[in-house]
């Protein structure tokens, strides 16, 4: 296969189930299916936006891909290497190629280590370069994320949330990864800083050709930087489409509801919105059939019987896939 057209990351049937214990001897009495049979691909230098509400399993999915959570089933193939099959030592080496940016800028930096220590550590672990080249690399990375050498010897508590997030991004870049998971990377930031960081990530991916899995609960945030967007509900992907298609023509009733629920900052356009009834069901006891049917305005008897599979939309030109019996 041509390297240009082959995807960088292939996720096939990935599942992460957590055991639930109870009963007399704390036996395993059930499984929480945080991620259930998820498949998608990310092309070289592209960003895949993953959207869903809290508890839908999107963060678990991101961590399972990196094997920060050990997946229960399924395969992850990054750049031809099957990550899920790697033994421990090889996995450590493979971590050079995949990194993660976290949500909470206050919790993601080690509080008693300086910026320099934090940024040198990945290179030390992987024995990259000499002390001198490592230091040069750190300065270069700081420059990329818009910070100067004066921050090298400072501690995380001396920075604002946005600055910490930049340091976290710099750390993820130290190993020149091919792929980065950004887990709610801008959600904890104020609006004015949020767009600074979003622009930074978009620039990095353009200039360095890194592929991103950008996880967020906010469809509006995802739009700006995503090429593909996937929508998750109760551990499953319910819709995947190129960004333009998804926002122009959302198919799954859940995607539509999500889109219409976003408050629009324009007082003249108070639209009628689809307000979903009730709450997300507990992932411990998901509904039969389609997981969304309990809140779906278009639910049919069929939906309770059979879970819809993610299928290519028939009429479409674009690779727009949706898991809904309506299509």
């Amino acid at each position, binding site marked *: 296969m041509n390297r240009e057209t082959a995807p960088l990351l292939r996720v096939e049937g990935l599942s992460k189930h957590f055991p639930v214990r109870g009963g007399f001897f704390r036996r395993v009495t059930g499984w929480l299916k945080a991620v259930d049979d998820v498949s998608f691909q990310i092309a070289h230098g592209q960003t895949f936006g993953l959207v869903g*509400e*809290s508890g839908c399993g999107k963060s678990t999915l991101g961590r399972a891909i990196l094997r920060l959570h050990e997946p229960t089933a399924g395969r992850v193939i990054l750049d031809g290497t099957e990550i899920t099959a790697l033994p421990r030592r090889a996995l450590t080496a493979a971590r050079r190629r995949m990194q993660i940016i976290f949500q909470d800028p206050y919790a993601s930096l080690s509080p008693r280590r300086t910026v320099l220590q934090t940024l040198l550590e990945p290179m030390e672990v992987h024995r990259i370069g000499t002390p001198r080249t490592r230091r040069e690399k750190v300065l270069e990375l700081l420059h990329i994320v818009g910070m100067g050498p004066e921050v090298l010897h400072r501690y995380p508590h001396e920075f*604002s949330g*946005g*600055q910490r997030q930049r340091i976290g991004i710099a750390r993820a870049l130290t190993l020149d990864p091919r792929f980065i998971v950004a887990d709610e990377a801008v959600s904890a930031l*104020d*609006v*004015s*800083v*949020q*767009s*600074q960081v*979003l*622009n930074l990530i*978009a620039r990095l991916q353009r200039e360095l050709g890194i592929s991103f899995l950008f996880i967020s*609960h*906010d*469809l*509006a*945030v995802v*739009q*700006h930087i995503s090429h593909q967007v996937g929508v998750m509900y109760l551990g499953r992907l319910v819709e995947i489409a190129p*960004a*333009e298609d998804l*926002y122009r023509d959302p198919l799954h009733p859940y995607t539509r*509801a*999500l*889109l*219409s*629920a*976003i*408050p*629009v*900052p*324009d*007082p*003249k356009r*108070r639209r009628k*919105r689809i*307000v*979903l*009834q009730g*709450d*997300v069901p507990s992932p411990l006891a998901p509904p039969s059939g389609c997981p969304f049917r309990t809140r779906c305005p278009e639910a049919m008897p069929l939906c309770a019987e059979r879970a819809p599979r993610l299928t290519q939309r028939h009429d479409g030109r674009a690779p727009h896939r949706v898991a809904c019996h309506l299509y």
Partner: protein
Amino acid sequence: MSSALLSIRDLVVEFSTERGRVRAIDGVSFDLAPGETLGLVGESGCGKTVTALAVLGLIPSPPGRILSGSIRLEGRELTRLGEREYRHVRGKLISMIFQEPMTALNPVLTIATQMTDVLVRHQGMSRRRARDRAVEMLALVGIPSPEKRIDDYPHQMSGGMRQRVMIAMALSCNPKLLLADEPTTALDVTTQAQVLEEMVRLQERFGTAVILVTHDLGVVAETCRRAVVMYAGRVVEEAPVECLFEQPRHPYTEGLLASIPRIREEKLPELPTIPGSVPDLLHLPPGCRFADRCPRADELCRRREPKLELRCDIAVACHHPNRYAGCRE
């Protein structure tokens, strides 16, 4: 404005911290008409929540205290009320909904206990009457089978449900003013829509005035009639939402509006941003607090702090505001 329900003038709230004294809000003034919905907008640390807590006399003290200024509810000065008198205001004339539905309700008391306590205290109802009223209120905020759910403990409910309970509890004594502090921020988007809708519907029905404290301009656009924008402890702009969104006058409002993530028809090459970050309240610049981040800042801005100036129904604190787009008088 004598017709105002709530009138805040030059309010200053100070906190003593390890590194020195900080004015969390510094000279905040605005009015609220009966039944009106006002958005109090700004980013974290701008003082919007402190303002709401000050209205209810709930500034944690120590370390905080109201240094000066006045808060009047129907002409009655609240800052001078004793603790005992204030108790008859809280929950009865003014009530408040908080951001975190997970922690705002007492975990070891049932919903029934918490709601009836308020009604018994402020309305002098018998417990039985109070319970009936509480069930009624729960039904109004859209809780299914309220006569059963009322005996639940908070942890048996979802976040959205709890926030509805808070709304029901807050409106149960028919207060004149409801302070809603980021009531939907902790909720998921789809739940957020439900809860907001519920709140607006009830507020209209009861004729309650609302101060909606939020960082989300989208929420303000959809629910409020007027908005007060705060930055670093000060009001920078106050205007009817139509004017504010169509023609923001303060460069901060303008930047904030531009940088809201929104679904766009055309993808922009670069998202608009406000450069820099919010100043440290301990080391404020001498002039305008926004000057460091403002594209229009000049010598004057760095030297002198602009005052909030009112023209027609738009007030702005800026030396170089956007052109005035006309007013609706």
